[in-house]
């Protein structure tokens, strides 16, 4: 689906990626995590052809996104954090844009809109930020594009909308479809994103399916600060200490993504060692 090889990219004063490698397979909802400025949005833009890789290669569905071929754009939908909707009625927007996507599902689109409780009698430009976002998410999901890119999709959504979003996303992903979600809101995306990709200092430092992570690691809140060697990562949190340990039991455990992210980005050499060979 997506193949990035030895890709380099930088802005005028900052080198962002240097030899980045990434492969995305169909049938997954990937979670792209990273600190501010790590390059998550830029990576999404390179995949969608909005930024051009300076070295290496990037291939999406076997095509070069930098050339922005129509065959690729028909199968790619990018819901950016910076929203734009024209001053049109939703039905007019649908009639103008849906025909550009060969597999657009009108029935599903209207079902998504009603699930999001979106009014269709107002111009899109008159909707709130969250409503605009919900409209574009509904449109993106209904486009049935094979690659759906979402940048901070839950930002600006109210609590019920986040639940609705999770439900829709869980239902929408097809076996030939890949969804790449860039987010800081890991709690919003728990039980949804899998595998987890962590981007740090221009490299993918972690790229593992949650099942793999859950069988090798476990997270817990402990009341006392652990001093034993078994704690791979410890951070003080409300009500105790969030601890990441090796999972010796072998059963899959629930992983707190925030603790995992902090452990990996804090330079968790021991965490990486556990996944040796799997980390790119």
């Amino acid at each position, binding site marked *: 689906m997506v193949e990035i090889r030895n890709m380099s990219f930088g802005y005028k004063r900052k080198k962002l990626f240097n030899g980045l490698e990434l492969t995305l397979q169909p049938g997954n909802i990937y979670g792209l995590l990273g600190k501010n400025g790590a390059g998550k949005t830029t990576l999404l833009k390179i995949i969608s052809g909005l930024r051009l890789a300076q070295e290496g290669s990037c291939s999406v569905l076997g095509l070069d996104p930098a050339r*922005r*071929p129509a065959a690729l754009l028909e199968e790619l939908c990018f819901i950016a954090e910076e929203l*734009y909707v024209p001053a049109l009625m939703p039905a*007019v927007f649908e009639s103008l844009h849906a025909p550009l996507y060969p597999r657009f599902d009108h029935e599903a689109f209207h079902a998504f809109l009603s699930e999001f409780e979106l009014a269709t009698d107002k111009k899109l430009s008159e909707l709130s930020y969250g409503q605009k976002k919900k409209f574009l998410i509904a449109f993106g999901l209904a486009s049935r594009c094979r690659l759906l890119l979402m940048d901070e999709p839950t930002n600006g959504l109210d609590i019920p909308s986040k639940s609705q979003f999770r439900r829709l996303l869980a239902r929408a992903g097809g076996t030939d479809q890949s969804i790449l979600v860039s987010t800081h809101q890991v709690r919003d995306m728990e039980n949804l994103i899998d595998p987890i990709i962590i981007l740090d200092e221009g490299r993918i430092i972690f790229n593992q399916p949650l099942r793999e992570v859950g069988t090798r690691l476990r997270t817990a809140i402990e009341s006392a600060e652990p001093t034993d060697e078994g704690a791979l990562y410890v951070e003080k949190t409300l009500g105790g200490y969030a601890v990441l340990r090796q999972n010796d039991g072998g059963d899959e455990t629930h992983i707190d993504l925030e603790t995992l992210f902090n452990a990996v980005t804090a330079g968790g050499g021991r965490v990486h060692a556990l996944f040796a060979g799997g980390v790119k």
Partner: protein
Amino acid sequence: MNAKALSELFSMRRFGRLLMRDLAFGYRGLLIAMAAVAGGVIVVSAIGALGMSAGGAGVGTVRGDAYFGFFQNLLFLGGFIATSLAFREVWQNGSGIAYLTLPGSVFEKFAVKLLVTSVGFAAGTLVFMSATAAASEALDRLVFGVGHGFFNPFTPAVLQAVARYLVLQSFFLLGSIWFRKLAFVRTVLWIVLFGAALAVVSAIALRIGLSHHLASGGGRMGSLRLGGWAFDLNGTGLQDLFTPGARGYSGAMAFKVAAEALFIALAPASWAAAYFRLGEAEV
């Protein structure tokens, strides 16, 4: 180029959809602008008719071709401004992502903008001006008994203006995708700078090409002085040098043809540059 590659480059279905989208996005602004211009034309024309009537013009008097001036202003000024805004959505926050990821080839997206701002705008202006002039003229004749004459969209002057517009708008289309902000102003500035540079180059070429007619320092009586240079025209005027049969005529004709060819060639060159610039636009 095989059929698949061709359909990847251009599909009538996608082109039509993108064109519909463009028109739907811009129709509101267009309607407002048209209403404002139509109102202005009618008012100015009515004031002129009132003046004619008050000045003693008899009932039924039809004077001049006032609408041609309106047409020129609308075509050139309005067209250049509209063209400068053609690719604005590429550079605006959020809309650039939406536009560049729209399913359509770069060629289709460019062709839509080119069609709308060149032939589309010119044809629309002709129709609009004809209709507005007809309405205005009918009103003037009805109220004041005098008029300015209907607007004829098929006169040589009108068609020549359209041809000039089609060439000149290409610079503004290039400016629209080249400059992220203030595309109109920056394009005008660049045209002025380009014109000045061309004038300097032409002057130098003229200086070299006509060197045997030029004498540095003082010139004799009857010669033409340009700064420190003096044309030695042997008592003839500069115009006489380029009249048919004169020794400078063939050179002048060659220069004229070359200048016109260059002027016309600038349009496809600007369109090509705009197309490639759109292809590599990053947001």
